[in-house]
């Protein structure tokens, strides 16, 4: 009896994050029963889509005892570059007036490559040159903001959002496909594919196991023949590539880009990871947890707005949830029995 009670308690502690999500949803439904509709849930998922991709990327970095503060600005840079190459030929304020209309894949691959190099630079600073991750990526963040602003704010049109994005991209990010009786937004499908790929990468590949190993004990990993430097650099680079993908999707979703695109995304991503059970000291975390972490924040955003809670109050709720999640997490690993 005693044992089953304690194991229920343990299970409760382990799954507390799901409980939080459930309680939140139920609370919103109780206040406003109309919340319970397929459309709303679809919207929540669609709004979460790019955030999930970003959080998974940031989560990988956290997993190897890193931390990436350059997330938002990296997305900003990728967004302005890709947007500038994806303007329709009929749009009046084109950045490159003589550019032929490119297939979406070309700018996408280009920004993925650019970000991969930038991520590698962060990774090399951290893994090879031993710069503390917060400092290395803070420096990267500043440089990226400067770079994207220089690219963005120039003659002849100056600092105005890069608009007129080709419908080939915007359609993909706004439209949906009919599967069975319901319309599923493409964004959700794209995010689902990336989540699946990430799950396999984290759980089924050598790379994933090495990520856990480095986060768990870098010295032991080194001695066990793990190329710690290589894996760390790869993690930063891969995260940056995912930021690039997210950036292009953001451009499509919003329909424009500027040098403020992506501002502050790193904090949202880290917060979602923390709430989703990723340890700030590395080595602990799961893809599922991060997805739920993102959903919790989106539900707060969407749900609380839906029942008419003031924006400012939403910030307070968010803050409390972060602290609450970490307290629970700490208790889970507390020694006292």
């Amino acid at each position, binding site marked *: 009896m005693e*044992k089953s009670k*304690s*194991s229920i308690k343990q299970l409760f502690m382990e799954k507390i994050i799901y409980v939080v999500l459930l309680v939140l949803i139920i609370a919103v439904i109780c206040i406003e029963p109309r919340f319970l509709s397929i459309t709303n849930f679809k919207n929540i998922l669609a709004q979460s889509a790019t955030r999930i991709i970003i959080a998974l990327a940031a989560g990988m970095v956290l997993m190897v005892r890193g931390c990436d503060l350059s997330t938002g600005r990296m997305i900003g840079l990728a967004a302005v570059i890709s947007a500038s190459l994806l303007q329709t030929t009929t749009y009046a304020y084109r950045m490159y007036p003589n550019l032929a209309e490119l297939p979406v894949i070309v700018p996408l691959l280009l920004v993925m490559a650019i970000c991969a190099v930038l991520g590698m630079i962060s990774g090399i600073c951290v893994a090879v040159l031993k710069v503390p991750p917060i400092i290395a990526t803070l420096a990267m963040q500043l440089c990226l903001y400067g770079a994207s602003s220089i690219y963005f704010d120039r003659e002849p049109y100056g600092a105005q959002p890069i608009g007129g994005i080709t419908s080939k991209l915007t359609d993909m990010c706004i439209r949906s496909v009919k599967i069975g009786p319901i319309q599923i937004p493409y964004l959700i499908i794209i995010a689902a594919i990336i989540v699946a790929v990430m799950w*396999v990468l984290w759980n*089924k*590949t*050598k790379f994933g*196991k*090495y990520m*856990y*190993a480095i986060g*768990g*004990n870098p*010295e*032991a*990993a*080194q*001695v*066990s*023949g*793990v*190329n710690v430097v290589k894996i760390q650099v790869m993690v930063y680079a891969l995260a940056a590539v995912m930021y690039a993908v997210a950036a292009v999707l953001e451009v499509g979703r919003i329909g424009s880009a500027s040098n403020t695109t992506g501002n502050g995304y790193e904090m949202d991503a880290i917060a979602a990871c923390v709430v989703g059970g990723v340890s700030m000291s590395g*080595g*602990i975390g799961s893809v599922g947890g991060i997805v739920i972490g993102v959903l919790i924040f989106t539900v707060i955003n969407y749900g609380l707005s839906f029942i008419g809670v003031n924006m400012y109050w939403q910030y307070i709720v968010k803050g409390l949830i972060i602290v609450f999640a970490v307290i629970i997490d700490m208790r889970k690993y507390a020694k*006292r*029995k």
Partner: protein
Amino acid sequence: MLSEYVLEMRNITKTFPGVKALDDVTLKVRHGTVHSLMGENGAGKSTLMKCLFGIYGLDSGEIILEGEKVSFAGPVDALRSHVSMVHQELNQVLDRNIMENVWLGRFPMKGLFVDHQKMYQDTKEIFDDLQIPVDPRAKTGSLQVAQRQMVEIAKAVSYDSKVIVMDEPTSSLTENEVEHLFHIIGRLRERGVSIIYISHKMEEILRISDDVTVMRDGRWVATKPKEELTSEKIIQMMVGRELKERYPKRDTKSGEVILKVENLSSLTPAFKDVNFELRKGEILGISGLVGAGRTEVLETMFGIRAKGSGTITFRGKTVENKTPQEAMKNGFAMLTEERRQNGIFADLSVSFNCIIANLDIYKKHGLLNNALIDKEVQETIEKIHVKTSSPKEKIGNLSGGNQQKVILGRWLLTNPEILLLDEPTRGIDVGAKYEIYQLMNELVAEGKSIIMVSSEMPELFGVCDRIMVMSNGHFSGIFDAKEVTQYQIMEASAKFI
């Protein structure tokens, strides 16, 4: 009427999910005696002490201190009742001076201010009484581990302790320092303080104990006065079976020279010009004092430490072993000395810890095959007798001996030719040691070769074919283990000092 015992722990039972950690254990400590607590790792010694200090609650049983039933809420509460503990890992504020560490949390005050003068005098008095030659104003971090431990004992005394628990106090002390510690323990005993002494070291136990309690698998086995005990008897009680020999027999012969190390020097001045050969199926021991450069030689051979000059020739081919990956590819494996620091992934599972060095063979179409992993892990666990509730158990929850076996298993899975073992049996109990020796014998019987660094002389004599001695970073001799004496080894160890 005072009872004969200062502390009685009666019929203590403590269960964790899935394991009965303590089962009806009784410990009775007489006034002014040293009472040793012995048992293999995982026998329940630490758990019993945690129960005493209220870190764990009791399922049943009671604790009687000087005739009164007590139940401490935690170490601080215990201190107030004059029961204290000197930990294996010292919790001290290294940046503050010694007297502040001693009186932390109860500084003597003069009005609103801390009375440093009184603090100094009180500390000095205790130090003088115990003959601890340390200035109370010195910065704690500047002290040697041994001195810091003395400070910790003095702190226990400052709380007017009647019972002091010492957990493996000599594990990082030199012989002289151990003598000093025993001297202090003697003085404490004269003052009527009782000591609960936890250690694996048989010689120490037999020297300083009045009584010895032996535990096994969470149960009380026996409490006997020292006069009735010998180390064989204690080992027998601890292991529960008769260990006729502490070292298993081996009748394999070593073959041809397989590895040649010539003029090996480290990039840092750790060691210079080390030369030796290793034969197929041989166990070569490396002896020497702490700081002789033994670990560094192994680390350089495995690519953890940069090589300055010299060559390593394996099967006639020169190998560089610049990184652990390269060394592993060349058929080397290394068990490191600091298990916690660079051996285990404490928060991850036994299974993960077992396979991490060897993921390539589990790949199927680029992905890891869980079924294959589970099968191999299960086989390894069985082969090397790891005691764990499940392969999914966190390795941090296993005893030291079992952790060590898992890491050894990790390296066996890589199928190495040369195993470099750095203090493979440090801090693990007699039974687990025996099993590790047996495993080593099996390995050399299969034609693998082992280089083992050890600080335990009897172990080197019991296990190795030859013993190489290092002294202060220099090679100072290599001997046949059957012919050399301990005296010769010690002499060689001191050659370059």
